[in-house]
């Protein structure tokens, strides 16, 4: 197994995309204490929007706009129709509800678009290569790193410099006390769900460049890997969760490129073995260095 610069570039691409997915999942977990298993289906819906826009001959920007509109509308619907009515129920009920939403969206996609799916072609130019110092690097790798960095920076500014950001951080630490201080639960949760949806739309755009064939199980495997990455990083805190997503994406990207073709089917085995090992050694997560101090 030889690791090349090309493999590292692929690792950065997948790491950046998975980092964004990890932030999206982590934001909702922070305020609702809920792992949204339907997150991958939001990405899938955005990818189908891009594919349909390509099929209709829409320009790339219009396809991206449609992708955002569809994913944000579905996120809002998920919050209003599922999360909000079930708020106050046990975490298990909420968790099963996200499974139900995931299956529902996937089944709708299957009925609507068929099992063979659609192809998103309007952004294929980003799949071409730049040759830098003899190394072929796909444009999407550079775009993904830049977009992920900008998104994370904007999110950091939002969380640290605005009132709603402060309320979201407080809610993720202790929602009950935050509400007691006047922080509006519905506003904070809706905002987190919508930002999470916007990140899913960004991920959909980047994943369709990497994999233009959009099927009803699009992004499903990625979501499972990212969930593992988020747990490895540290589910309770956004930065460790993001680093966990990036790390598992980077490792998957590098290993996926470096493993011989006849051994690539073992990639998930390597990745999940690493996850199990990390959780055995550091159950709180690889990147969670915080100390929990409880005053009594």
């Amino acid at each position: 197994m030889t690791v090349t610069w090309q493999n590292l570039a692929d690792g950065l691409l997948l790491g950046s995309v998975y980092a964004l997915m990890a932030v999206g999942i982590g934001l909702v977990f922070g305020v609702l204490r809920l792992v949204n298993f339907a997150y991958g289906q939001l990405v899938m819906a955005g990818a189908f929007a891009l594919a349909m826009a390509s099929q209709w001959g829409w320009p790339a920007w219009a396809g991206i706009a449609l992708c955002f509109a569809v994913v944000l509308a579905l996120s809002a619907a998920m919050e209003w129709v599922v999360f909000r009515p079930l708020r106050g129920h046990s975490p298990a009920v909420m968790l099963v509800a996200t499974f139900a939403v995931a299956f529902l969206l996937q089944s709708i996609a299957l009925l609507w678009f068929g099992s063979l799916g659609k192809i998103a072609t309007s952004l294929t130019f980003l799949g071409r290569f730049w040759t830098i110092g003899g190394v072929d690097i796909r444009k999407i790798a550079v775009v993904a790193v830049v977009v992920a960095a900008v998104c994370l920076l904007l999110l950091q500014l939002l969380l640290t410099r605005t009132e709603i950001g402060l309320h979201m951080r407080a809610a993720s630490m202790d929602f009950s006390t935050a509400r007691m201080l006047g922080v509006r639960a519905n506003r904070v949760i809706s905002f987190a769900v919508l930002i999470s949806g916007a990140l899913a739309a960004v991920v959909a755009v980047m994943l369709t460049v990497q994999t233009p064939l959009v099927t009803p199980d699009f992004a499903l495997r990625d979501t499972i890997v990212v969930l593992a990455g988020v747990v490895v990083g540290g589910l309770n805190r956004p930065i460790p969760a993001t680093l966990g997503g990036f790390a598992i994406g980077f490792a998957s990207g590098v290993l996926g490129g470096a493993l011989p073709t006849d051994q690539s089917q073992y990639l998930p085995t390597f990745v999940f073995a690493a996850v199990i090992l990390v959780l055995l050694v550091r159950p709180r997560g690889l990147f969670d260095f915080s100390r929990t101090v409880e005053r009594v």
Partner: protein
Amino acid sequence: MTFTVENLDVRYGGVHAVRGLSLTVAPGEIVGLIGPNGAGKSSTLHAIMGLAPARGSVRLGDRELIGLPPEDVARSGVALVPEGRRIFAELSVAENLRLGRAARRGSQSTLDWVYELFPIVREFRSRQAGLLSGGQQQQLAIARALVAEPDVLLLDEPSLGLAPSIVDVVFDALAAIRERGLAVLLVEQRAQRTVAAADRSHVLANGDLQLTLGPQDAGDTDRLVAAYLS
């Protein structure tokens, strides 16, 4: 605005934590709520804030608060300093104070008054709140409640676990808060100190109001003990 609790009932499943409690707190008054562990003191405060299921009536002026979610109770003008402080340890002192203004955007003069009341909060405003001592955290918790300019301040055992000198700081601050015209409902374990500081103190046992004491009763240890054991 007068704060009124009427026939407040709190039940947790089969446990009847508060039984038909009624009390009033006028602006500029401190009312104490004392009693042994499990008497229903904290449950009363939780019910007022919408954190526990309750029946009866809790009014601020004419506005009924029962049935409102905690954020709306806070926005109506009721602030709780919870037991155990519940400050946001990972945020700075200044950010904790900003959160205090989530309910109501208090004025700069209120913030200045709070800083005057608790100079330590001003001094350490850029420090991470979790790095403060227990006494400093308690001062921050009270300051955080005050910056919202509430009409009613509820305090749940603010002296718990504090050094005697810090307990003095807390009780001195309560006197200043009363002078500013807030209605204060104080839940405490330090019965004698509370009875002395409050305009009147209600003794709760098993969720029932047993008797009401005035500041003149603070030295009457026998009566206090009898009330606790009743």
